């Protein structure tokens, strides 16, 4: 049972990529060198941006009319496909570079300008999502192997690597899982909480790295994570939990009817808030950095480039400050997501005494 659940979780994590990529159709990507595209820096992209070194285009997978069209990159799709074209080339003449058609908007449409049925293309968010998942595996599988051999249990933990992660793991087990779930069941849910914490933490940290993208600034990623907490909560809920939802004990009957819809809505608002909270915090950090740096360009337009150069150090310092806040928020949001997941699970799996008053 436990092995099966673990397998299902892993499967969910990887298949959630489909949800991630379908969101990419909303992203309006521009490749205009003169303008700074603020929205383009925040939404998902179909390429990995290593400017000024390189730009790696990601594979395009498009399902249309019962056929899956797969291409190595957007450029190769534009040059080889006779069904699809770039959204901006429906009316205008394609731009060429070295005899090849260059992608302009990265938004793929049919030749008549209509959208294809499903765009499953791999995006930057999905790539960093996979990297974070891989990192979680690569760090914790060797670590758990060490503990199975007895290093850290029968002897001291060895090396800085094991020591660093042991503090975090013990913190989550004792301060989050034990405090919120209770001493009887907390060990069963600790693996899930650990996975969620480190996975979110790694995804958040990728947003702080140069050229990195934080996948948690994508609402589909956070929605899937919240959905898994919701699933865990409902799957392992006790009879008492359902009783509290549908027929609240210890109150008069008319109140029971009032509480039933309230509790039912409460079931769904909890994961919804979990999803929106993580997404909004990570996305707003990105937007804030862009907005503050944008002040330099606004000043340049309003008062001339001299003023913009003169005052730019203020905005750069402010950006540095926001960046440090972002680092803090990355930790806090991973912690908050984990502790709230633990809290919701703890509420659902708690065994109530019928005698104690509500």
């Amino acid at each position, binding site marked *: 049972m436990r092995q099966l659940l673990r397998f299902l979780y892993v499967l969910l994590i990887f298949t959630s990529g489909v949800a991630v990529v379908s969101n990419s159709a909303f992203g309006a990507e521009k490749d205009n060198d003169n303008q700074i595209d603020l929205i383009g820096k925040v939404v998902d992209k179909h390429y990995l941006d290593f400017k000024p070194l390189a730009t790696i285009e990601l594979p395009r997978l498009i399902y249309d009319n019962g056929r899956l069209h797969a291409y190595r990159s957007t450029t190769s799709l534009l040059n080889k496909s006779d069904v699809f074209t770039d959204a901006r080339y429906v009316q205008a003449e394609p731009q060429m570079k070295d005899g090849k058609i260059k992608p302009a908007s990265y938004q793929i449409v049919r030749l008549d300008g209509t959208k294809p049925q499903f765009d499953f293309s791999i995006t930057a968010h999905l790539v960093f999502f996979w990297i974070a998942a891989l990192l979680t595996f690569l760090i914790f599988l060797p670590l758990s192997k060490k503990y199975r051999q007895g290093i850290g249990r029968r002897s001291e933990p060895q090396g800085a690597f094991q020591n660093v992660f042991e503090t975090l793991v013990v913190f989550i087990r004792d301060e989050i899982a034990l405090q919120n779930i209770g001493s009887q069941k907390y060990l069963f849910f600790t693996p899930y909480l650990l996975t969620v914490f480190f996975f979110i933490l790694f995804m958040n940290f990728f947003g702080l790295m140069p050229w990195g993208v934080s996948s948690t600034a994508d609402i589909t990623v956070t929605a899937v994570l919240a959905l898994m907490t919701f699933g865990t909560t409902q799957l392992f809920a006790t009879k008492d939990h359902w009783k509290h939802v549908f027929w609240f004990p210890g109150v008069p009957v008319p109140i029971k009817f009032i509480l039933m819809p309230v509790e039912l809505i409460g079931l769904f608002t909890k994961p919804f*808030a*979990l999803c929106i909270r993580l997404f*909004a915090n990570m996305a707003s950090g990105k937007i804030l950095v862009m907005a503050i740096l944008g002040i330099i360009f606004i000043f340049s337009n309003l008062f001339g480039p001299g003023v913009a150069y003169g005052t730019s150090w203020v905005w750069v310092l402010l950006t540095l400050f926001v960046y440090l806040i972002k680092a803090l928020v990355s930790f*806090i949001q991973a912690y908050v997501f984990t502790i*709230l997941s633990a*809290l919701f699970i703890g509420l659902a799996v708690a065994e109530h005494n019928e005698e104690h008053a509500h």
Partner: protein
Amino acid sequence: MELAYLAAGFGAGITTIGAAVGIGMIGKSAMEGSARQPEASGDIRTSMLISAAFIEGVALFGQVVCIVLALK
């Protein structure tokens, strides 16, 4: 259409005020609590973060409505 932008701006501001008042009150009480009883500051910090997260959640619902208004 322009009124929708105005409403979104006002809404974002008002939700922020509400969240700021709420989180400020939590911070105040938590500080008073841990000043009075320093040995309980660990528990207080945890409960403070949880309550702050709930308030933030409500504020974010408001912000989402504002974003929907602005993007309409």
